[in-house]
């Protein structure tokens, strides 16, 4: 099962990416948060209700080719990094008006951990 593989995969990635891991957030805690809060709509590998997150850190917003984004996200010029992801997760509608995520993460520490996890899974 996916869930059972996750920690193992993450462990491998942690080792291989250790020197580049983000100093700010904790990606292990970020993975647990991702599993409970994002998993309804997102996976790393597959488009679900929301777009796949593989490689999201460092790419242009709204650029997964086979996912049907809102015009707002597709047309936005944002590139996902620490700041833009933090702003997005704090308040998606304020960050990119007209988007349709409708889900936010109020705690700054939670956002930092989630971003660290997304960054790790993007190999950045």
């Amino acid at each position, binding site marked *: *099962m*996916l*869930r059972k593989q996750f920690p193992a995969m993450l462990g491998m990635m942690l080792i291989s990416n250790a020197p580049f891991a983000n100093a700010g957030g904790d990606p292990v805690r970020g993975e647990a948060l991702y*599993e*409970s*809060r*994002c*998993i*309804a*709509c997102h*996976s790393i590998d*597959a*488009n*679900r*209700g*929301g777009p796949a997150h593989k490689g999201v850190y460092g790419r242009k917003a709204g650029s997964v080719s086979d996912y049907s984004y*809102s015009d707002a996200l597709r047309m936005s010029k944002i590139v996902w990094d620490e700041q833009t992801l933090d702003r997005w997760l704090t308040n998606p*509608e304020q960050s990119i008006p007209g*988007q*349709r*995520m*409708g*889900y*936010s993460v109020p705690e700054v520490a939670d956002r930092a951990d989630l971003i660290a996890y997304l960054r790790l899974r993007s190999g950045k």
Partner: protein
Amino acid sequence: MTTSENSMVPSRRSFLGNTAKITLSATAIALLAGKESLAQISSKSMSQDVNILNVALGLEHEAINAYQLGAQSGLLQKAVLDVAVKFQGDHKAHRDALIATIQKLGGTPVAEKKLDDYAMALKADMLKSQADVLDLAARLELGATNAYLGVIPSFKDTGLAKVAARLAADETMHWTILNNALGRPLPAKALSFGA
């Protein structure tokens, strides 16, 4: 799979206000959002609400298909299969209610994808045992609970916020049963959902 007359579906009945049949286009709309409040919100905030409802509808489509994959996997014992079919019925009722509401608000409901697409996205080929199926269902139900709780503050119409809360309650009930069937402990702490 219509289970509306099945005695195992009390929650669906009460969701519909004890109307025996699924007359959603009328019943659900009346239940789902008070007309007065709808009249008072601007079209911009209405379209934001429709967007959120449509993402929720996508969750329900996925849940229906996940249970379908589980049900036809041949991995479930009869008693478990019955519960899976009942839960799938709940998700169909959620879907129908969301579609009716989105249409009422002038939106276009997102279409269901093909079963194969869901199978791929959910890695259904990894399901090798009843426990695997229950684990997937439990993950999705917990995710849905947290997603519904999480979108509540985004609704401009508080009637719709209440709908999201009621959907979350159903998903929590599903998760609890699945978690129990998997022999897992209850959450250690209070307030474990939606955080």
